[in-house]
């Protein structure tokens, strides 16, 4: 059994003060990961003396558009991402991915901030957020800093957050005109299913029908979600009519294996990640053709 004291902060300053003053504090919002880890005495759980509940800090729960960015508060739940019109309209990739998470109950409690800070290799929001070039704002008592999400992630279940910092904002640049997105997920059942593999694709198709600025991020494929420059390069500059999609699939799976090495799951994941990237690109091309 794990002993800890439970703290509840009603404002950001109070939370930051706790983080500054106390040691071995673990932040809890929805609790869908941490409560399970505490219950299971998970090895992933650091030594904790305090659980700091931030779920009552109203100022961390927002979704708004600021210039060319959508800004999302860390306390926004997966259900919030699914249903908020701004996200649905401007970032359909994100609301689509949120749809696949857990169950209704988990989506009602689990938050985007928690999904990011837990940094699971199978997290459903991380590939789309990375592909969307999301940035995270980390606040501490005396200031704040901003990192790209990809930079923020440091390993499986590891991030670069400091012990006195709190994730206070997720900032997503709006993809401009001509951008298309797609999300693919394979699980073992239709709900309450941890991704066996997932994939987020964000790509621009220009007036000449040429792929530009491809961002291809698989989940559950690499030790932690990351974009794959090799396959992105292979896509960029190709015409949507002439691209050899099977070849892209092959490059994708080889790049994934070059990151992970041959593992017990490779015989399955290698062909399937190829299938997923091919499907995603086909979807994107179909969508583009529909718009013409």
């Amino acid at each position: 059994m794990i002993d800890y004291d439970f703290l509840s902060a009603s404002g950001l300053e109070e939370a930051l003060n706790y983080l500054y003053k106390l040691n071995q504090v673990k932040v809890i919002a929805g609790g869908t990961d941490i409560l399970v880890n505490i219950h299971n005495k998970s090895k992933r759980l650091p030594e904790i003396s305090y659980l700091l509940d931030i779920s009552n800090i109203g100022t961390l729960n927002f979704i708004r558009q600021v210039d060319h960015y959508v800004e999302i508060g860390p306390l926004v739940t997966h259900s919030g991402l699914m249903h908020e019109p701004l996200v649905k309209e401007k970032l359909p990739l994100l609301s689509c991915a949120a749809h696949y998470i857990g169950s209704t109950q988990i989506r009602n409690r689990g938050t985007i901030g928690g999904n990011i800070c837990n940094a699971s290799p199978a997290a459903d929001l991380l590939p789309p957020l990375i592909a969307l070039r999301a940035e995270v704002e980390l606040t501490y008592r005396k200031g704040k800093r901003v990192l790209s999400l990809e930079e923020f992630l440091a390993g499986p279940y590891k991030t670069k957050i400091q012990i006195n910092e709190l994730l206070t904002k997720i900032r997503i640049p709006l993809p401009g005109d001509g951008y298309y997105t797609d999300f693919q997920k394979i699980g073992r059942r239709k709900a309450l299913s941890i991704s066996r593999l997932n994939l987020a694709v964000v790509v621009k198709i220009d007036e000449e029908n040429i792929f530009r600025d491809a961002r291809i991020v698989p989940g559950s494929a690499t030790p932690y979600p990351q974009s794959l420059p090799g396959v992105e390069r292979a896509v960029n500059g190709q015409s949507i009519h002439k691209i050899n999609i099977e070849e892209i699939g092959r490059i994708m799976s080889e790049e994934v294996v070059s990151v992970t090495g041959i593992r017990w799951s490779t015989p399955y994941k290698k062909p399937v990640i190829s299938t997923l990237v091919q499907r995603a690109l086909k979807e994107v091309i179909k969508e583009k053709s529909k718009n013409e």
Partner: protein
Amino acid sequence: MKYHQVNKSVNRVDAYEKVTGKAKFAADLSFPDMLYAKVLRSRYPHAKINKIEIKRALTFPEVKALLTATDIPNNEFGVIIQNQQVLAKEYVYYIGDGIAVVAAETEEAAERALELIEVDYKELPGIYDPEEASKEKALRVHPELKDNQVIHHLLRKGNVNDGFTKSDIILEREYSTQFIEHSYIEPEAIVAVPYDDNHLITIYGSIQNPFSCQNAVASVLMVSLNKVRIIQNHIGGSFGGKDEVMSAMAARASVLALKTKRPIKMVNSRYESILESYKRHPYKMKYKIGASREGKLLGMEIQCIADSGAYACQTPFVTWRSVVQATGPYSLSNVKTDTYGYYTNNVYTGAMRGYGTPQTIFAQESLMDELAGELNMNPAEIRLKNIYHNNSITASGQKLDNHEVSLEEVIEKAAKESGYYKKYELYKNNKSKPGDIKRGIGMAISFRGCSLGAEAVDAAGAIVAIQKDGSILISSGLAENGQGLKTVLSQIAAEELGVDMKRVIYQELDTSISPDSGSTVASRGTILGGNAIKEAVVKLKSMLLEMMAKKYKMRKDYIIIQDDYLIDRKTEKKLLSFEETVSLAYQEGLCLSAFGWYKAPDISWNEETGQGRPYFTYVYGCQIAEVEVDTGTGKVDLLKMTAAHDVGRAINPACLKGQIYGGVMMGMGYGLMEELETDKGYIKNANFDEYLIPTIKDMPEINPIIVENPDPNGPFGAKSIGEPTLEIGAAAIANAVAQATGKRIRHLPLNLERVLLGYSLSKGGRKK
């Protein structure tokens, strides 16, 4: 015949208290001075226990008692073979073996005290594969036994070699199935109360089979049966799973209760439940089949090896049902079947809905499709060519002459409703179609012996007590396990008596009141329990009619009871209301209570030959699965299941459909995703985050088709439904997937990896 109470979808009698949350389950119960107990389980799948140091745990605050094996009066129990340990004594034989149990003022204190018990183990090599265990020089799981064999059943009919010689085609195939967790939604829970109402011990709990629990506890305590009282609570699912594991829990709680003289409550967490409770047997099966060019079956040779795990538990009977039914419902002159169970150091295996048939049906029905493929025949056609009909002789030599053998009917009805023939042709040329998404349709059929058969004594009792105001109490020695037995038996009692079912209240099973009717297993609740209830009602009715005949100076058989009135059959004139009649009988000093007893018709079995009449009647079913397979990822989507089941007579069609829906879902889990994974005896997925069962979102469209051919031995013709619904689904799905992909998978479950690659993967590496 027109029915008034049965054959109707009346509300379940326990629905209101369950949906309003008023129903009390064992974990809801509380008694004054109650203590909480927790079990320390093994660290290794196989080890010698050198020493158990309990001093520190005993002095932990709030700890009131601590037991190890030496505190248990008689440490070994079992329904068939008494070799299951209440607590591990010298050896732990599997990872779920209990070593010590602590009672404390709080559950938390009990759990903390467990951490203070120091066990000095000597880890031993174990045996984790039943085929390995079968070898002559194999390490013995139980050193005192001469080998690892739990049981061997055989069946011989004709000469199988003659059959193969005459065959134009012979196929030999190997199939295997996995460990399955019952996944009842309510984990095990018990409260044991000492010295209560003249009983040494009273046990409340989530117990599927109160009488086997009573037997086990009395035997462990070494006291007579009448000192042990089991009162069954509402039960949150069981599916065969709350038998021996509950007996062990009840025995531990009882010894603690007597030692502390205080009530003891024990509730397992899900993790504890999956770790300790027995599972469905994994089978390894070798099938050889011979047939003529025209598809007539000429010989079948079968070998099944079941993993019994650490204890014998129900393996002898589970593998017996397999030996009887392993050929499936096909006429064959030449059959040679052997089924075996072997001890290993895996988690032990026991009863689970289906009981030795989902495994063999998966093999036999896959094989029939493979044979159809080789002969270029339609799978339905090859089945129709070989199935049992009225007066067919089964593999065990039984002539099916006392009930309607309705296989053809269930196949045709399911085929028609699912559009089987058309779809089969449509999906046939999948290969030439573009895209990764392929559809397939597949069928599986079964015959299933109702009730226990030659396993054990097959009889059941009931008490019907008419109160002086005309209300009625009934009780039965068979248990409500969530399947709807209370409702169905209340309907049967009311129908037979000619009164409204609202008069009837069904009492909870209490072993000190209810007649020992054996276990509520083998889909025998309705057929055995219903007959016993009917028998009691017939006695009371006869007594009432006799009294009325005297009073009205009429012939007894001219009076009937209908719609709560005693009626002159000829003139249809109401003579007296049921209440007035009962009141009169009470005034006259007549006995308004009756006991009913029903003993199943005679059966026989020759262990030497596997010939006889193993069951007194059978049910028949056909399920047809339609799937969509993503051949790019291995994902199988079960779109639709059409399930036709002959139940004899539907006492409550709504409850019956509920059984079909649930059975199809469990069959789907068995076929597509469920697998308790073990690694050298360690359980790798001991919680629902990793042990995956289907969710409501995975539920396919299910079309239940109730087929009714009343059975002369069933109450109003009713037979069985619980198990038949589960046993054939996985086979039907596997056949549909094979059609969709053109590839045959012979190992369950058909998970992503198997469907894509043909083999499964796990952290240990590649599996079959």
